[in-house]
């Protein structure tokens, strides 16, 4: 195999360390939020939208039927009910689903500094895809 220039390896290491740092923190914040909200849900500190003892009667139904029977909204409609014990957990889930965005944005200045416009553009495009998916505009969530 070919001998690689050391600067390439050092650049890759720097990119990986920055991405890892931001991803690690995003994952931790999402996980902590998830654990706290789930504990509040389980111990009854927050009143759930669907009572715990009634869940077994609806969690075996298709999602569409579950939403109709429980009056749970689709898209970002859950934010209005985020004070409810069960739906408060979606904050942590949304944080986990979105925690790749800060590391991608964090890489762009590194690539631009090295005039690596191609990879800066790729990071920007992935970010746009994730934001569009989260918005529900592409997925019919609204």
């Amino acid at each position, binding site marked *: 195999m070919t001998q690689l220039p050391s600067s390439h390896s050092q650049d890759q290491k720097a990119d*990986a360390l920055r991405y*890892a740092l931001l991803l690690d923190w995003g994952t931790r914040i999402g996980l902590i939020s998830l*654990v706290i909200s789930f504990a509040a849900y389980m111990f009854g500190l927050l009143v759930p939208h669907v009572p715990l003892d009634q869940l077994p009667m609806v969690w075996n*139904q298709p999602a569409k039927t579950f939403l109709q029977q429980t009056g749970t909204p689709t898209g970002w409609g859950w934010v209005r009910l985020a004070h409810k014990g069960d739906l408060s957990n979606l904050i942590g889930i949304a944080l986990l689903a979105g925690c790749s965005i800060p590391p991608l944005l964090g890489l762009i200045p590194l690539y631009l500094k090295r005039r690596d416009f191609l990879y800066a553009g790729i990071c920007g495009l992935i970010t746009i895809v994730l934001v569009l998916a989260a918005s529900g505009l592409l997925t019919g969530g609204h």
Partner: protein
Amino acid sequence: MFAPPRPPLDVQVPLWAWRRLGLLLLLIFALPAFAADSVVPASTMPWWFWPLALFATCFLIGIVAVPAGIGGGTLFVPIIGGFFPFHLDFVRGAGLMVALASALAAGPMLLRGGLSSLRLALPLALLASISSIGGALLGLALPASVIQTALGLIVLGIVTLMLVSKKSEFPVVSQPDRLSSALGIHGVFVDGASGRSIDWQVHRTPVGLLLFLAIGVMAGMFGIGAGWANVPALNLLMGAPLKVSAGTSGLVLSLVDSSAAWVYLNRGAVLPMVAVPSVVGMMVGARIGARLLHVLKGSVIRKMVIALLLFAGIRALLKGLGLWV
């Protein structure tokens, strides 16, 4: 003696064989229609038993999934869908979150250890993220039993591919293709098992990009992540070392599953009571699994991948056909 006339070259397959093949295909595509696809029988256990059981099961799945180089969702969906009382919609929604959480938990450690390459992952993840949104929309529109049947066939096909291929721990890539050279996709990693420093590069990048476009569709459609397809594509097709393939697969998964997960979340198919104990159990287990990846030999990881994929594939196929519901 009478010699029977030889059949013409273009009619070598007898009619009865075609009939049997037709019957088999009919059964494969018709049986899912009779598979249990709507309401799952209610459980007699108290409600609190199920989140505890989910946590314990996902902790164990998380330990084995990361060294195997597959998303935890690949194992999660058949196991939880088969033995827990939740509807498949919520199992698939939680499965994507589990696959995502597994990849996120292991990602930073794999990046710091040099086992995951951003330059390899980002172009592939861009295409796969876009297509996973389309796949998720398609998957939520199709009957679950049809998806399960197709999934089982695909996974068993990958198992066959991995069994046939012999050289994959350190594939020989004599010449990188022009696209991978232009993108600067190459690197160095230190194999923890042997202590060797290994330079790697890839080839067949254009085909790899197209394949990841298809992988994204499948990841979103089946709601199980895509590690089972990522590792063979990176390792067998593009020629990345097995450990780099497994590590980079996790990074691609974290981006592809994020896109697909948003679709499930927006459609109300993520139930916190199913998703949260699963995600937390998987993340704790995955951190232990990521440590094993740095220490275990590549051949051990390969055997684990094949065994886990075989089980997941058979389970999905039988469930889709309604033979093991």
